[in-house]
């Protein structure tokens, strides 16, 4: 069984590496600032004692006031996982750094989130709609769609 790391176990290391990047940490997850998500993710992947070499999923949630992105990583070597969250308060042009350079599997998932939620991923090599067609108006999974 994969061990789910609590946010509190990782927060000290992150605070040491990137001071001020973690907004809050709880038993289940870790909330970081959206601008530091790439650096944090890169550290989580490359650090030998964490070694998160596998991205389970990226999900996006619309909470009206902000969008929340949920990342889950797993380490094949250590057999542990971590849930990382970040928030995006700009409803007009929400944008977060892309993690495609770290995990290829993020490619289609970030495109799907861009397509249905309208969140841009900065640094994505091919950010365009994936389920809907070019020219479709709006982002249908947003709570204020229609």
């Amino acid at each position, binding site marked *: 069984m994969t061990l789910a790391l609590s946010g509190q176990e990782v927060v000290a290391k992150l605070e040491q590496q990137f001071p001020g990047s973690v907004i809050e940490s709880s038993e289940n997850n870790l909330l970081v600032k959206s601008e530091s998500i790439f650096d944090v993710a890169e550290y989580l992947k490359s650090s030998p004692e964490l070694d998160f070499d596998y991205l389970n999923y990226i999900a996006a949630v619309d909470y009206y006031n902000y969008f929340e992105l949920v990342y889950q990583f797993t380490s094949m070597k250590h057999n542990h996982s971590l849930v990382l969250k970040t928030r995006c308060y700009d409803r007009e042009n929400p944008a977060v750094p892309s993690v495609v350079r770290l995990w290829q599997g993020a490619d289609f998932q970030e495109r799907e989130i861009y397509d249905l939620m309208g969140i841009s991923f900065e640094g994505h090599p091919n950010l365009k709609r994936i389920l809907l067609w070019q020219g*479709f108006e*709006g982002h249908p999974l947003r709570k204020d769609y*229609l």
Partner: protein
Amino acid sequence: MEVDITPRHIYSDTELDRTEGEAIEALKRSTQQPIPDPDRWLDEELRRNILLTSLDTILNWARRSSLWPVICFPACCAFELIAANASRFDLSRFGMEILRASPRQADLMITAGTLTWKMAPQVKRIYEQMAEPKWVIAMGACGISGGIFRSSYNVVPGYNRIIPVDVYVPGCPPRPEALIHGIRMLHHKISKRSITEG
């Protein structure tokens, strides 16, 4: 007591040979001509089998008796169609057990499933690639009107937005009996066609 020691032969060898020879000669003499084939039935059978009908009737009979569906099953109604095709409901009774992967070899489209706008151009193209004459059965609520997804941003509200539909089979999904009933209705529709129409 006296013992008869003379050899007992019912027929002598010579006698047997002579009898056989006579029988063969007699058969040969009596069969100088071939026996005529029993062909008296021919006339009667021909009279029983020649049928005068109209070109419309024979064409429509041929067309409806072997409808070949093209493979176009975008969603879950496909499973009822597969059930209808399999041994229990046995669509081959209607000469349509073959599902063609190529639209060029098919003349019936059974639209088993929800169609999204993203997929719609491909379905329209498949329909256009089918050779005339061709028919469409809209199977299930989604095929008829979009069903419960009608108000969705990405669902075609009925196949008749993109292709002409001949028969509508309601249900979510329709049972195989309902689909077979729809196919029988299509047979009736085909049998009313005429080559003189447009």
